[in-house]
């Protein structure tokens, strides 16, 4: 079962919720996948050991100029201007390439072969509590994160309970993380920004047909904006986590709330079991 923790707005506490949920259920066989490959942070909290690292690359074309007849078939099929002929040469622009392999397929001389370009790293390790973490780390300066997110997700064992920490936003990277999830847990803060971005993510999830529930983070006990919205949309609120300076300080040190604050352990344990119940039902519905 795949549960993706998402938010729309950045910094609402996705990673905090992901790592603390995973850490409060030792023995449940939870695996964590950090798909916020632009700025992965889960490893800071889970502290995996003996990490293995492998470079992840994507296919880009390589042209054998001895075979090329300058027919321009590759240039015509490429929608991304990633391959072009100029002055009896074929130029490629690997950073523009979407790896569709059209040029390779269309070349009548078989002059194009698949080469590769490194997008970033895939890192895996297990922490002292036995929680396995897999994450991607996009190379700085690289624009394309979705292929790396897909590679991280490819490591998911669908039979285990997998928590996916998604990137913020609602465009390609966030959608790449949410696709094929069985359930989405939305972390929202009760502010106008939080509400606006939550609504965008809910729209995306409806499109993707993923069942969902909400956790309100930094609840001040006053603002009802998220409650009102959730009631209108018929989305259940599974938990409310208060804002405390103590909690903020624990997170800022890269520590787990469930280890440092007993009350938080109770709340997260409760959230974990409610979430599992809902996600099971959501999975059935699908």
């Amino acid at each position, binding site marked *: 079962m795949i549960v993706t923790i998402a938010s*729309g707005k950045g910094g609402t506490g996705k990673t905090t919720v992901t790592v603390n949920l995973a850490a409060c259920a030792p023995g449940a066989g939870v695996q964590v996948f950090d798909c916020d490959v632009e700025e992965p942070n889960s490893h800071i909290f889970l502290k995996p050991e003996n990490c293995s690292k492998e470079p992840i690359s994507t296919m880009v074309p390589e042209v054998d100029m001895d075979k090329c007849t300058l027919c321009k078939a590759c240039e015509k099929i490429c929608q991304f201007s990633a391959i072009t002929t100029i002055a009896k040469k074929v130029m490629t622009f690997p950073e523009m390439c979407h790896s*569709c392999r059209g040029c390779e397929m269309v070349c009548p001389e078989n002059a194009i072969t698949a080469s590769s370009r490194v997008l970033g790293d895939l890192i895996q390790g297990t922490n002292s509590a036995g929680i396995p973490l897999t994450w991607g780390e996009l190379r*700085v300066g690289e624009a394309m994160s979705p292929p790396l997110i897909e590679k991280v997700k490819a490591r998911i064992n669908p039979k285990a309970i997998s928590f996916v920490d998604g990137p913020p936003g609602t465009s390609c990277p966030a959608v790449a993380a949410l696709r094929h999830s069985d359930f989405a847990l939305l972390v929202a803060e009760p502010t106008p920004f939080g509400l606006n971005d939550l609504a965008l993510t809910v729209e995306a999830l409806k499109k993707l047909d993923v069942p969902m529930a909400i956790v309100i983070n930094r609840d001040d006990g006053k603002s009802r904006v998220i409650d009102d919205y959730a009631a209108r949309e018929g989305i259940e609120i599974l938990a409310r986590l208060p804002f405390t300076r103590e909690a*903020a300080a624990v997170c800022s040190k890269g520590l787990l709330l469930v280890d440092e604050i007993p009350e938080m352990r109770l709340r997260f344990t409760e959230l974990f079991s409610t979430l599992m119940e809902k996600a099971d039902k959501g999975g059935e519905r699908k």
Partner: protein
Amino acid sequence: MKELTIISGKGGTGKTSVTAAFAFLAANRVVVDADVDAANLFLTLPHTTIQKENFLGGRLAEIDPVICTECGECLERCQFDAISTDFIVDAIACEGCGVCVHYCPMDAITFEQQTCGERFLSTTPNGPMVHAKLGIAQENSGMLVSQLRQQAREIAKENDIPMIIVDGPPGIGCPVIASITNADGVLIVTEPSMSGMHDMERVKRLADQMRVPAFLCINKADLNQEKADLMKEFARENNIKFAGEIPFDREVTASMNAGKSLVEFSQGPASKAVQNVWKNVTSYINDTMNRLI
């Protein structure tokens, strides 16, 4: 003309609140919301939208079921698993590469450019605001960001506006690269935590690669002063000009709830601090070389 982009790496560090304050403090500026897939700036700036335009992005394949003979050619060639076994294109998975279109023996696949969102031009008290709404699950956010900045530059040039302030997206990927390329300076708004530190380092490396001078502002600094001091040290060692720190202050959320910029709403400690950051940033950016004509 100078262009300042506010970024953070990590989300939710207060980028937009800082941008909204700057947009209020700058007497004559164009402000751009480049966080196109979760735009928030409009929520704190009173504005009137005077122009709306559709944003066209990449193309999308669509199979006409009447013509399709279900030969399977497209299915076999698609690298993105975007075509189902009953020959329907998954619009979200489709990358717009056109390989299926090229190889369909029946010419059953259309390939039209898609409307991916909307661009807006609005008026606000201190000058124009250029913003957008990217459609849900749409691509080409980087291209949309480039278009917004281009429009802002044209407006600034036509009206002799000396400053462009850009609210950037979180992360370090495509839309972030598009929002800082060729800017005169970036202000990194971070928070004093392990995550904030980790993400700031990555975003600083990106700014270095793009050769854009970086300034640093630490928000909610007093939540972990020790970490904040480490960040200042990092700034000193890595050629980042330190623009100041902002204390944690409930007035920030209160101003957001009131739909106002912090500096307009409050004269509390955070408001005073952000005014000081603005003073430093304007002096730093005026010291940078003019990058663009």
